């Protein structure tokens, strides 16, 4: 609680550097290409709440970004789901793979 209030006090103070937050972009693509730690061009989405967060649309945006950048097929794989999740993500831009082994 105290820690949360400290963060609020800092971020909502006039001295907080909001511009820096706006401009502090994540550099995951270039750093990945130079790394053996990660597999380039891969992204996963998981719900960080109680579901229905908008994962499908968020994933679709990532599919579009990848497609626009690479102009090639994107492998899109949804997991743990049943119908009717993510219907809108079945587009001409991606291989739509519906598989999951062992019921995991």
């Amino acid at each position: 609680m105290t820690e949360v209030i400290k963060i609020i006090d800092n971020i909502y103070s006039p001295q907080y550097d909001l511009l820096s937050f706006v401009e502090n972009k994540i550099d995951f693509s270039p750093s990945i290409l130079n790394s053996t730690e990660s597999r380039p061009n891969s992204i996963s989405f998981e719900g960080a709440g109680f579901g229905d967060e908008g994962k499908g649309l968020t994933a679709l945006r990532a599919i579009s970004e990848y497609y626009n950048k690479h102009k090639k097929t994107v492998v899109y794989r949804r997991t743990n789901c049943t119908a009717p999740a993510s219907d809108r993500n079945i587009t001409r831009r991606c291989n739509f793979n519906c598989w999951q082994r062992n019921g995991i």
Partner: protein
Amino acid sequence: MVFNPTDAVTEIDYIVDIVGSVPGNFMIDPNIPLSLDTHRAWENVINSWHLGYYGSTGRGISTSYSDEILRLKLTMSDLISAEWKGKLGYHYDITKKQTGSFGFKLEDIKVATLKDPVKGIKVGSKKDFLDRVGECRKILLKYVNKSLDEYLYKEWNSETPFVFEGAQAIGLHPKHGLYPDVTSSEVRARGIQDSTEGIVDYKKIAAKVGVLKGPYISSVGSRTLPGEFDIRTEIQVRNVFGEYGKSTGRSRGILPPDIPALKHFRNVGDFEYLAVTHMDASFPSIPIVAGYKDSNKNNVRYRPYQWYLDFVHPEIISLPGWDGNTARKAKNANELPENALRFLAFISEVLNVKLAYASTGPSLQDYISWVK
């Protein structure tokens, strides 16, 4: 993941209606477990006894998973085999005995379908059941690909972009969710590794993104969290953002962002980046649950047990709101309302995770990216 052949055919029909054909390269793994109308019937019977299962959607998910534990699982490979009628008929007979032991006649039990979730259909006789599944079998056969693992291995070891989307959420995880409103499967990125037989090492996925609603959280089921909105705000948000369960149509509970709960999900989740959605929601101020206190006024954390949460007191703080319409028009981060930016900075810092995306509306283009 489990697979209902009838609903899959309905989904295919929807897609064909919209785009004229099934686009891309749609493949079904022969190892995917089946979730049939019989599973839904069995779940309905258990639900009717109110001995548990309150959190279920009536789609037979938990009963399908229980078949796996009981080693009675049927998979797509069973459905495409020459002996499919015998295998599914045996499964029908077992379910008939199960439901009969509770005094229900399997033939007469109505189950929801994707095509008709409210009225549903009767399971019918064994012949009806097999005929119905058999019709779906004919349609689905061509999509079953026994070489999926080779395809996956080849593509994963190339530069082909991969997008993984896990359904459900950490708040619904069978171990970390709030019982009984939990799912049956592994919802985190690590489930990708399990389900691909290790071909995809989830730790090597370049960006593992957690997705959460920003100005509020929604929750379907019987769980009760300590904080709540006033009823007017709850109804307003539910109507404006269509907060009703997709599968069941149940009203979603609308709650203030619960920082202790979100921190817990961060601690047990696999994500390293954050996507915050619904930033076009407008409130004069945003109440957040900043922390919990016990009856002795000690700070305590979130734990996923209703008996525990019933006795903690929420510490609510109001943060300044912003104009949702302005947020929706923003094309770049610096066009977002100042308080929306501060809120995003707060969520990112309090959960100690970098922000990757913020969504500002329902269209494909309505989002701000923090990715270079």
